[in-house]
């Protein structure tokens, strides 16, 4: 990698790190982060494919309340860098498959870094308290921006370190991996998406909505249906169900007429 690419990779990593906590623009999602790293290193197509594959695994990863999910930012950035390094000698397929497998342990490492940053942020808000005491707007703003910067550095430093490792070492490592290991990790990669989906299901599942899961599962076997078509189906089904449920509630009510405009009109006659 040339120095300009490395610099740009570190910038992308910085943005991914900030977004890992802010969760607004989604620069930390693999689909975006891997694509950007692919672009700045001259391997856009491979970056996009890696991003798409990782995104499928990371779909259900979300920070809820004070809980922290596996860290998509470090997983996406670090595995994209490893892939780019590996592309030099290993073939594209192997480089992508191996970096997907490496993404998972990396997401765990990222988790600890996030928790570390969230702890360091405690004294930072105490400095904000002190600034608030003097009505020092600048002080409050500065500490807020520093805290965000800290989250950016959380990913930027590991990314810079990975860039420094010589490409030969990465490819040697990739090539040294026996077929059963890389093949097995690819098999595992096909299965781990289930964990993310299970996390989503556990958040939303009630006995009432399980039938909709079954509908989606069965209908997805029709390969003619694109995801957009499935989305349209899902929205329609949700609207129809909610509408019918409202009707049922009104019908099952005491017949007082308040929720039933047609009944009111008939009664008035």
């Amino acid at each position, binding site marked *: 990698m040339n120095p300009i690419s490395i610099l740009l990779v570190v910038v992308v990593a910085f943005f991914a790190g900030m977004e890992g906590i802010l969760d607004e623009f989604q620069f930390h999602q693999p*689909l*975006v982060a891997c694509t950007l790293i692919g672009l700045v290193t001259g391997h856009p197509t491979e970056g996009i*494919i890696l991003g798409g594959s990782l995104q499928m695994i990371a779909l259900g990863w979300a920070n809820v309340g004070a809980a922290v999910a596996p860290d998509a930012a470090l997983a996406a950035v670090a595995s994209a860098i490893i892939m780019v390094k590996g592309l030099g000698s290993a073939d594209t397929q192997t480089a992508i498959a191996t970096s997907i497998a490496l993404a998972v342990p990396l997401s765990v490492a990222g988790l600890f870094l996030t928790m570390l940053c969230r702890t360091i942020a405690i004294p*930072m808000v105490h400095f904000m308290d002190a600034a608030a005491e003097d009505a020092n707007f600048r002080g409050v703003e500065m500490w807020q921006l520093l805290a965000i910067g800290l989250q950016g550095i959380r990913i930027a430093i590991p990314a810079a370190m990975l860039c420094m490792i010589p490409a030969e070492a990465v490819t040697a490592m990739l090539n040294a991996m026996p077929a059963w290991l890389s093949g097995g*990790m690819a098999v595992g990669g096909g299965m781990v998406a289930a964990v993310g989906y299970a996390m989503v299901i556990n958040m*939303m599942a009630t006995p009432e909505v399980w039938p909709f899961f079954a509908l989606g599962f069965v209908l997805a076997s029709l390969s003619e249906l694109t995801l957009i078509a499935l989305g349209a189906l899902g929205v329609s089904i949700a609207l129809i169900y909610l509408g019918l449920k409202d009707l049922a509630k009104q019908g099952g009510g005491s017949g007082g007429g308040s929720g039933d405009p047609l009944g009111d009109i008939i009664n008035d006659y």
Partner: protein
Amino acid sequence: MAENEVKLSLGVRRKVCWRHQFLQGSWNYERMQNGGWCYAMIPAIKALYKTKEEQSAALKRHLEFYNTHPYVSAPIIGVTLALEEERANGAPVEDQAIQGVKVGMMGPLAGVGDPVFWFTVRPILGALGASMALTGSIVGPLLFFVLWNAIRLAFLWYTQEFGYSVGTTIAKDLSGGLLGKITEGASILGMFIIGALVRRWVSITFTPVVSTIQQAEGAYIDWSSLPAGSEGIKQALELYSSLGPNGLNVEKVTTLQANLDQLIPGLAALLLTLLCCRLLKKGVSPITIILALFALGIVGRLLMFM
């Protein structure tokens, strides 16, 4: 009093909305999103209060504990702006009232934001973009990025304005059925899509061969008797389209996977997902499950059954 009434201008409200995006920047284990919240309120505090004492009190007031979903926080900040405006104009709005509104709204709204944004909209847009990206198309990531941010920015701005215009009356809306309906609708859509994603993207393939049989003459392409040149290719393709993939070889190989697919396509993926649900409910960490699945994949490959 009407003469010198302070109003938050559109410009100030825009600034607050912009800064509100950095809400989680100083997320900490003590008071969570308090720093980001205060940071977002600064333009409004500057516009409303002129003395140092008032400004300092306002800053401290907005450094209290706060934590909710970063997007549905927008209507809350809208309401808070309305309250602060009334207070600056002399209305008796106590500190406790402001903190009470924040705390009272953040719980129920976070309950809507998580399922709607993290577990419905993002998986759907993410899966849509990712499925395009797998073919190497830049449209995938672009679509995800543009659509997501358009939805997000529109939501942040319009719900903040909504909160600002209705002020405290929004608390009454919260107890109404609308939020419940949105959550339920999102759960239905989310479950439907997750069902589809489990079928499409969780892949388990069992490779053991169940049976190998010699096919009857005519059920396979007799490669040696094809005419030479392009005529032969044409004939082979015609035969292939009528015989299907089994026509390529003399032997018909049936794998365990083919048998399972006849039963219910994707059954193994479904069972695996349900197993993960059970394990997660029992408190097994997702990280443990992920690592175990990789181990299973490697063992499966070593023992040649996957």
